[in-house]
């Protein structure tokens, strides 16, 4: 499955839920929000193969 993260598209092995996807990518749940099919979703959201997935970083420096 394709996942957009920090403006780049990466290929990831299918994950059943958003939580599993974040775990596979070793991403902290506090640092990113997950958008599936243009909608903000919670960690228990089930992911389908054809879904468009975007991870939005929430941490900024300065």
């Amino acid at each position, binding site marked *: 499955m394709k996942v957009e993260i920090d*403006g780049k598209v990466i290929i990831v092995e299918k994950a059943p839920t958003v939580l599993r996807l974040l775990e596979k990518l070793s991403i*902290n*749940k*506090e*640092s990113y*929000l997950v*958008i599936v099919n243009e*909608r*903000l*979703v*919670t*960690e*228990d*959201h089930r992911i389908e193969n054809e879904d468009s997935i975007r991870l*939005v*970083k*929430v*941490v*900024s*420096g*300065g």
Partner: protein
Amino acid sequence: MKCKVCGGTAVISLKAYNNALCANDFISFLENRVLKTIQKYRLIDVDDRPLIAVSGGKDSLSLWHILDRLGYATDGIYIDLSIKEYSQISLEKVKSMADRLKRKIYIFHLEEVFGKDIESISRIIRRPPCSACGMLKRYVMNKVSLDMGYNMIITGHNLDDEASALLGNLLYWKDEYLWKKGLELKETEGHLSKKIKPLFLCSEREMAAYAILNNIDYIHEECPFSLDAKSLVYKDILNRLEESSPGTKLQFLKGYLKVSRIMNIQRKQAMSYCKICGYLSSGDICSFCRLMERLGVKNDIKFHEYKPKKIPS
């Protein structure tokens, strides 16, 4: 996951509050949290004239939007540090929000006054760019506020900004900064505008979610000078703690507020002011005026006004 208010589909889980909310209930929750912070700490009075410092990022633009929704009429100030595309894109986002809210912005272009960008200036004064940026921004925001008749500056510093700064100050026991944190910096008549931080108890994650749910167009790119910032390391550490123990960041800051209040440790220090401009200074002349002298700049601070088509009377 279901919304704990209405039972609809939740879009965000808030483990620090043992809560999960749908889009509408989350927006109400966050706006109400900002309102309660303003009221509890008496940050804004009805007759105040606030000016918000906007960077084009999620925090300041979302805060501007929230203040407007809460009925606090607020104009903006944007400081263009001439960081190539980053500054141009940021300014576009700020103008877009000014149009949406029908509020004006004061814009200060660094290169117009100094003929140099922030990188060159930081080399000249031998300070890291982030330190030079902070010094210039604090000065210009204060100057515009005082000159244009505003009595307070609002910034979008959030819970993560404050917690990471506090952690940094604690780790190195920076006693001179340690007890200066807080939601409010009092004004000094004729010298300093009051400064407030209504997002002190709102996390970055909450602010990003608010921006997304309200279609707020903010700059996602990081400032090129902050990529190696230590604050990012502290934020990462705090987020790991937060993930394993939800509510840690909030308790860290709430505890700090309580301790500093109970111990009355916000010590009053003798203030001295610049002989040229009257701004706060540790010596006879402030850092900004020293920079002006060093570069032979004789112009006064110039800024532009950006006015949307319709401004409420």
